[in-house]
Every structure is written in structure tokens, then in C-alpha cells.
């Protein structure tokens, strides 16, 4: 695989300045508190109510969290992240609210400021904590509600604010909008890659992401080659190509809806029955689980992650692959949003099996995999840089233990975080993309 390292460097240089583009809303402290509180009240539901009543302060959630384990700092205990939400629940909606109000303080702007780090910098909404919780509390889901309240109060990290404002206001990310996308696709077509764009009618709508367009271009090319190899009637659409959803990441519901709606409309426009999500983290839950609820009804198409799609094609015998050889010692990193949050666990393994590599599992994988530490936009938050690095050591150890030479993943955000972490730690293991490996193993005819 060839990554344009020049672009990667540019990207790395741009990141510290990302927040400068943000336009924080002007709000009084009282307005921030009121908005956050009312957002919490609106978003709390019966499942969260039962969860918030249930915590027994056992601390197991911390032992499952890469940020706590990497730092040993008690303030990063996952359940603590929900403290403000819990207080609002207790005061406003709990059946015992008349009692709780006697000793539970209302949230303040200082609380919101303090919790920003806990809810953004030090949480990737990976959900591993919920897998060990003896009470089955959905911490990650409620962290997202915390983010929604903070976002409405204008208190998210500047970097994420810049991204969601660009996506919602300019229909672009990192300066790449529909025009730039069309330009990039045209370049690829000129270079001989067969990528259909803006077909009026197609069975499969393939979406991509800015990261694949400008950096992991080989991933986009690989996807195109595979789709063509399978002989599918597929297309990209310039009116609905961006799978990354910074509204969902940052907690800004308005932008979340705008971003996913574009894909829904594009799929409807070309009559696609299948929408493919690229190797990208939040993109999958955004379309697979959230979109139907955001847009008021069951979606008229099936949503598949590319790794999910490839696994099914391999299992059904429709996709035959060459073997890459047993000398390739690889392990697999289950992206949190694909595996633990969505059940796409066996499909990538069917692919790796078909690739005939020397595949080893990590010690705590599948739905219990350790997060790479960069998801939910944390990769972009500069203040989280040290934290991410400390958390990433857990991942390094995990991969080292397998004895593999490289780690394969199916998420661009994970891949970026692995690359960044690997550079900072001088780690020598390879970092590979599943879709790119499949393209590599396509039988040529």
C-alpha cells in the first residue's frame, strides 16, 4: 500500500491549527447551563434512567478503559463521565427527584468546562466499559448524550467544532467538498481506475470519506476494483459520498442529520438497495443504527460496512481470492464501532481466512477488543495528544503479544491513530487495511 506521506505530513502539520477555524457561539453562562440541561432532559430515556439508577460504584469500568489503564488516573473512571447527566436526571426525571433535589446540586458552567476533557479528550465512546459492568450500564451511549448537551452549550473542543461547522455549513471536510471530490475522482479515472460517478441508477451506492479521498486513496481504489470485479451495478455520488459524520462525533444533532440525510437522498435518487460504508468508524453506526431514527422511518436500503460486505461475498462464494501466503503474520484490530457496537465480527475473519495469511487473534479481541484510542474524534483533539499516546501503549502490547508483523484493521480512524501512535513510539509493526489486502488478492483476469 502506498500512502501519500507528503499528504500525511501536511495533515499532521495542519492538525494543531484545526481549532482555529472554529466559530464558538456567543452564549452567556446561564444560557449554556440551561441549554445543556434541557438537552439532557430531552435525550434521557427509560433505558438511561434504569442505567443511571443502577451504578454500584464498583470501579470495574475503569479497569476496562484504555485511558484509565494507560494513566492510572481515577478521574478517568468511565462512570464519572456521566456525572452531570446523572445529576440532571436525578433532579428532573428520577422518580425520587423530590428526595434527590435536597442534596444533588444543579450543573454549573464550571462543571461543563471540567467535564469537557472527560467526555471528549478521554473517551472514544468505545463501549468496552459496558462489557465488564456488572449492571450492564451503557456508558458510551450516555457519553454521547453528554456530548449532545455540551455541543448545544457551545462547549465542545474547538477541533471538533471546526469540523462539524465545516460539514454542516460548507458541506466539506478539510476543504474537500463535492467539487473537490469530483476533481479527485476525475483524476483517478484519468489514471485508469474505473470509478463510476453520479450514475442515475445503481444497485449499490458506495460512500467514501475525506480521509480516503486525500490520504488512503488506495482504499478507495481497492474498493472500486473489488466492486468492478464482482460485476456490480455500483456508483459514487457527489451529492452523497461523505460517510464521516462529525455531527454524530461531536454531539451536534443538527449536523448529524444533515450529513446522513445526504446519503439517504443520494441512495433514493439512484434507487440503490445497498449502501456501502467505507473503512471509517462512526460512519457505520451513523447510517446503520442512527439514520433510520433521525429520518423517522426504516431505511429503504441495506447498510453494509465494506468489511461486512466483503466477508459476506467471500462466505457466499461470490468473491474468490488468491492467498497472500502464510509467511504474512497478521493480527486483526476490531474497530469498536464495527465490532462491539455493530456485530461485524466474523465477516472480516472470513476474509482473513480466505486470504490464507498466518492470522493470530489478540488476547482480548472481537467484542472485547481494546480501543485504538483515537476514535470519536479524539484523534483530532490536540489537548488529548498525550492521553492518546499513553492509551495506545495498551494496544502496542496487545499486538506485540501475538507475534504478528502487522495489524490489519477496517477503520480509517483506527488506521490513522495506529500510524500516529506508531510514529511517536517508534513502533515497527505494519498497519494494513482490510479492503486494500483484498484488492491485493483479487485474481486478475
Amino acid at each position, binding site marked *: 500500500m502506498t500512502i501519500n506521506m507528503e499528504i500525511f505530513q501536511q495533515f499532521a502539520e495542519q492538525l494543531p491549527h484545526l481549532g482555529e477555524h472554529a466559530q464558538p457561539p456567543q452564549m452567556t453562562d446561564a444560557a449554556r447551563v440551561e441549554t445543556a440541561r*434541557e438537552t439532557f*432532559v430531552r435525550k434521557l430515556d427509560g433505558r438511561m434512567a434504569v442505567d443511571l439508577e443502577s451504578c454500584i460504584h464498583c470501579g470495574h469500568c475503569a479497569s476496562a478503559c484504555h485511558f484509565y489503564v494507560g494513566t492510572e488516573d481515577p478521574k478517568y473512571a468511565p462512570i464519572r463521565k456521566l456525572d452531570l447527566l446523572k445529576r440532571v436526571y436525578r433532579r428532573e426525571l*428520577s*422518580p425520587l427527584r423530590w428526595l434527590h433535589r435536597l442534596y444533588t446540586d444543579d450543573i454549573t458552567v464550571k462543571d461543563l468546562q471540567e467535564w469537557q476533557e472527560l467526555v471528549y479528550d478521554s473517551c472514544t465512546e468505545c463501549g468496552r466499559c459496558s462489557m465488564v459492568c456488572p449492571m450492564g450500564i451503557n456508558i458510551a451511549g450516555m457519553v454521547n448524550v453528554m456530548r449532545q448537551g455540551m455541543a448545544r452549550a457551545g462547549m465542545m473542543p474547538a477541533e471538533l467544532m471546526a469540523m462539524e461547522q465545516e460539514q454542516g455549513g460548507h458541506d466539506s471536510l478539510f476543504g474537500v467538498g463535492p467539487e473537490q471530490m469530483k476533481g479527485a475522482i476525475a483524476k483517478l479515472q484519468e489514471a485508469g481506475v474505473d470509478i463510476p460517478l453520479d450514475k442515475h441508477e445503481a444497485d449499490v451506492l458506495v460512500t467514501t470519506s475525506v480521509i480516503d479521498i486525500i490520504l488512503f486513496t488506495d482504499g478507495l481504489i481497492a474498493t472500486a476494483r473489488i466492486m468492478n470485479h464482482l460485476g456490480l451495478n455500483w456508483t459514487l455520488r457527489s451529492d452523497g459520498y461523505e460517510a464521516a459524520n462529525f455531527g454524530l462525533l461531536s454531539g451536534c444533532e443538527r449536523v448529524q442529520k444533515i450529513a446522513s440525510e445526504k446519503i439517504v437522498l443520494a441512495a433514493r435518487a439512484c434507487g440503490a438497495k445497498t449502501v456501502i460504508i467505507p473503512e471509517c468508524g462512526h460512519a457505520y453506526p451513523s447510517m446503520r443504527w442512527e439514520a433510520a431514527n433521525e429520518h423517522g422511518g426504516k431505511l429503504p436500503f441495506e447498510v453494509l460496512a465494506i468489511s461486512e460486505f466483503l466477508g459476506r461475498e467471500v462466505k457466499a462464494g461470490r468473491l474468490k481470492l488468491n492467498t497472500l501466503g502464510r509467511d504474512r503474520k497478521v493480527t486483526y484490530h476490531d474497530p469498536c464501532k464495527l465490532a462491539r457496537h455493530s456485530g461485524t465480527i466474523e465477516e472480516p475473519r472470513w476474509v482473513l481466512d480466505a486470504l490464507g495469511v498466518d492470522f493470530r487473534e489478540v488476547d482480548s479481541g472481537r467484542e472485547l477488543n481494546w480501543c485504538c484510542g483515537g476514535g470519536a474524534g479524539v484523534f483530532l483533539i490536540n489537548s488529548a495528544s498525550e492521553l492518546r499516546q499513553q492509551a495506545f501503549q495498551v494496544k502496542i502490547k496487545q499486538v506485540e503479544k501475538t507475534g504478528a508483523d502487522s495489524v490489519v484493521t477496517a477503520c480509517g480512524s483506527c488506521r490513522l491513530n495506529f500510524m500516529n501512535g506508531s510514529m511517536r513510539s517508534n513502533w515497527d509493526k505494519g498497519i494494513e487495511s482490510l479492503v486494500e489486502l483484498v484488492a491485493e488478492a483479487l485474481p486478475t483476469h
Partner: protein
Amino acid sequence: MKEEKTLAERLRERGVTRRGFMKFCAATASMMALSPAMIPRVAAALQQAKRPSVIWLSFQECTGCTESLTRSHAPTIEGLIFDHISLDYHHTLQAAAGDHAEHARDEAMQENWGKYLLVVDGSIPLKDDGIYSTIAGITNLAMLKEVAAGAAAIISVGTCAAFGGLPMARPNPTGAVPVSEIIKDKPIVNVPGCPPIPVVISGVLAHFLMFGRLPELDALNRPKVFFGQSIHDRCYRRPFYDRGQFAETFDDEGARKGWCLFKLGCKGPITYNACATAKWNEGTSFPIEAGHGCIGCSEPGFWDKGGFYDALSKGTYGSAEGIALAAGVGAAIGVAAALGSRSRQAKADRKEEV
């Protein structure tokens, strides 16, 4: 007034040998937890004991206490001691009746004012000015106050006199109270039991005769020597309790093997008396040994502490219906709370739409 013989003289008259008398003193001393060194003193005191005047008043009672004391199949030294006292007034035992009897009482009081012992059995009704129990037209209340005024000490024999007993059980229609509720300025010994063990009575009397004062009393004014231990702590079936072996019915294998009667309602753990050690009918047996749980008859309010056949651990609270009602009320409040929370959320939704 009769010539006062000492107890020793009277016993000698009855054919009790010196040896027999000393054996009795040893038994009495040991029962009262006095050291063997005290035996000579016991003997000396008893020998010299003069006949104290005793006035016995029976109020709201069943006469069981008197029956218990006087029921002997063979003359006992307890009985003889009893004979030794000058029982100047006792409804059941005295031969006299009517004015004659009341006159005898007045005489005894005047002659021994300040020195006679007052023994009471039965509770005293207070409702409706005490009309529910009278003797010769005098209410129990009035008679008690009158006689207590000149008494050296009062012995409340039986649970009724000591704690109110059966008449005081819910709903207490006569307003019955124990002696100690009425008399506050005289030393009172409570000798409860329904009835008390005969030897306990005589032991208290013997103590008074020997030492001229009442024995050491517990917080309920019961002689510690007889009421200081619970039945449970002295029960011979205790090992079965500890091993968790209980009779389930009165005729099952456990019952026949003599297992613990806790499940059949034995109140031994909260009952203080000498039944498990001194036993009844001169040491023949006691209720538990006979296969029936202790009913706690020497404790205040034992009639109202739950059923005799309900284990002690059973509560004496209200009803299952009450608890079911509480469940319904709780659920209803929960629903109301949820409706309130939904309306709160709807309010937030409306604010959002604006």
C-alpha cells in the same frame, strides 16, 4: 395473739429432725446461690425465725397461684414454712367469712402495723372507679391502698399481680394494672409466673424470714436468684437448638426425640424463670420437658406477644393485605412520577421547537 414459737420449734414438733432441717437449709442456700459457708447462718436464722404476720389479698385472679403453692402430694418443708407464717387473712384458705373475716384483717393490721408482709395475687381493675372487682363492697384499689399503707413489704405473687397478667391482655376491658402501678412507696418483690413455681415463693419467704429483707432484684423487681437466667440458657434441649434440630409438629419424629420446640412457639429465649432448673412438682418436669414450648408466663404482657404456637421470630405486625396495599400505592406513585417526568420532557421538547 398466739404465743410465738420459732420455726425450729414448730418443725421439731412436726417430726422434722435436725439433720432433715440442715438438709433443707443446704438446699435452700444452694438454690439461692449462697455459698456453703452460709448454711450455718441460714440454719441459725431460720431457727430463730418468728412468725411474721402475713396478709394475703386476692384480687382479679384465678386462684392458680394459691393452688400452686398449696398443692402438695406430700408435706414438704416449703409447706411447713408456709405454715410457719401467720397467715392472718386469705380468702381461699381461711375458715372465716364475711364481717368476721374483714374484722380479722383489721385486727392483724393494727397489731402489726409497719411489720406485716402483704402478699397480693391478681391484678387490680381501675376502669369505672374499680367497680369490676370488690370484696365486701370495697374495691380492690381501695383495699390495696389501705393495707399497703402499713405493710413492711409487698410480694406480688403471680404474673397478674406482678405485671397485670391475663386481665390486662388486649383489650383490657377492666383497666387492669399490676400492684406496682398503684403502690409506689413500699418495697415490692415481683414473683411472676402463671403460676409461679412453689419453691420460688417459699424461697423468697425464706429469705425474708432469714435476713429480714427481700432478696436482690432485677430491673423488673424479680428475685435475680430465680429470674436471672432465661429458660433458653438453662434448657436441656439447647444443643438441639444449636444444631438446628427442631420439632415441626407435636407428634413428629423430632418431637418424639425431644428436639427443640422453637418452631412450635417456645418463648424460652425471652423468658426468665427457674423452670428449667428447679422445675415443677418437686423437680419432676417442666413444660418443655413435657413436650410443650414455654409460653413465657413470667414475662410482662406474655398474652400479647404473638401466638403461643407462633415461633418467636414471627413478627407481630399488621396484615399481608396492608403490605399488598403498600405495593399498590408504591406502584401508583411510581406511575405518577413517570407521568411527571414525561411532562417535564415534553416541556423541554416544546422549548426546543421554539
